[in-house]
């Protein structure tokens, strides 16, 4: 009988991380920006039916990049978590922080225990109330690492370059069209092409809306918002 061969934990983690990173970097990127009236999410996504961005709860949105079936599972788990919590306590008790922690735990466990790690990064955003609290953006990596981002965040293939670009160009309290145009420019920073409304999936958490703040921006309105750049 052959002996089970030994792989050092360092090597195993390194291999897994490399595998996950490779999977993620093949996919297209996604950016999030805080703007004057809420939080904007922009993804490069030519499909109008398979969403990368979605509503979780009244003030909370979810975004995922990487392998679709994996982040779709996480998305549904998040909706379940939020709905059960909101039903048993109150709608105001559902927070992005608790949800981001749950994602972090789940991804961390999968990364250490399963043979194949998830090739995803997810983002949980919560728009602030009017009463002076601040927006929250959590970015969770394939191994469960969780980061609390401010003003902007980027995930996916070229996220480092995009983040650098946003660092230089981001301004606080932008109007929606300015924020959107900046987001789209950020997505193309590493590519030599222009993105039209047909290549994009865009949604906002709009503070001015009643109860459910999440709103997808339909193709037509998107074209108008992008109008000034073309």
């Amino acid at each position, binding site marked *: 009988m052959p002996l089970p061969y030994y792989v050092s934990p360092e090597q195993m983690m390194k291999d897994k991380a490399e595998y996950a990173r490779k999977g993620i970097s093949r996919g297209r990127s996604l950016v999030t920006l805080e703007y004057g009236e809420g939080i904007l999410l922009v993804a490069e996504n030519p499909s109008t039916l398979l969403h990368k961005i979605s509503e*979780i709860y009244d003030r909370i949105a979810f975004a995922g990049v990487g392998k679709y079936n994996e982040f779709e599972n996480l998305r549904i788990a998040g909706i379940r978590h939020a*709905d059960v919590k909101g039903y048993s306590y109150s709608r105001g008790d559902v927070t992005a922080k608790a949800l981001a922690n749950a994602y972090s735990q789940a991804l961390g466990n999968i990364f250490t225990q399963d043979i194949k790690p998830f090739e995803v990064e997810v983002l949980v955003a919560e728009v602030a109330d009017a009463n002076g609290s601040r927006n929250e953006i959590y970015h969770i990596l394939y191994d469960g690492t969780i980061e609390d981002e401010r003003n902007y965040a980027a995930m996916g293939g070229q996220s480092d370059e995009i983040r650098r670009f946003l660092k230089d160009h981001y301004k606080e309290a932008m109007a929606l069209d300015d924020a959107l145009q900046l987001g789209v420019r950020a997505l193309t920073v590493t590519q030599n092409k222009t993105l039209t409304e047909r290549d994009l999936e865009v949604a906002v958490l709009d503070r001015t809306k009643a109860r459910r703040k999440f709103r997808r921006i339909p193709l037509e309105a998107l074209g108008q918002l992008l109008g000034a750049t073309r």
Partner: protein
Amino acid sequence: MDGERWRSLFSDYSNSSFIEVLRRESPHLVPGHETAPAAAPPEPIHGTTVLSVRYRDGVIMAGDRQATAGYQVASRRIEKIFKSDELSGIGIAGAAGPAMEMAKLFQTELEHYEKVEGENLSLEGKANRLSQMIRMNLPAAMQGLVVVPIFAGFDEKAGLGRLFKYDITGGRYEETNFDAQGSGSKDARDSLKKLWKRDLPRDEALHVSLEALIDAADEDVGTGGPDLVRGIFPSVKTITRSGFGDVAEEEVRRVCEAILTERARSGNGA
């Protein structure tokens, strides 16, 4: 290798149902989870009259604001018409506790489906789901905690307002023109029967609905009429192609006052 495992993914039809999630993860929160008590609590709080009327642009839902426990007024300002989603509403009558819980669960169920699936249930699908929820309540209903809502909404496919009534077994019956539910429902229906016409404009539909509620309050001890002293008026909602909307209290007050003034002047309805 393990073929059964992935095949079961296709036979899981309840994937987008909140109630099934609750059943799996927090069964103690599902209504009807505990076995019903041998007898109903002595005097559960009851909501009284709700009604729904179809008109030109969709449906109106209206309800009085009183809840009773036996012969006592339990609340004068209770809300009986709830938004279940952008295009539908639920009006509750019967035991107020279980009815409000059912309305809340129904709202969550519809929203959950919408978020998971990325699209809305059809109006037919919503009406069916509610019927299953009422059936879940049957053991409690047998002990006296009856919940019989009215469900109404705008059917986008058909392009018109539709309304459904239920019985305690979850039986679902579509009404074409109007319906009322609760202790004053018979009087409200009698009134609607004489006043309702096809393709009523919004203002007249509002008028007809309030006439019916005032008649119900007149004849039924449980139903509360417009309370001019405290400034409490029936709550009225409209559901049309453009969504679920409130009728402003100021407008309801004006119409109620006009009806009462007219009745005092002419002696009609006395």
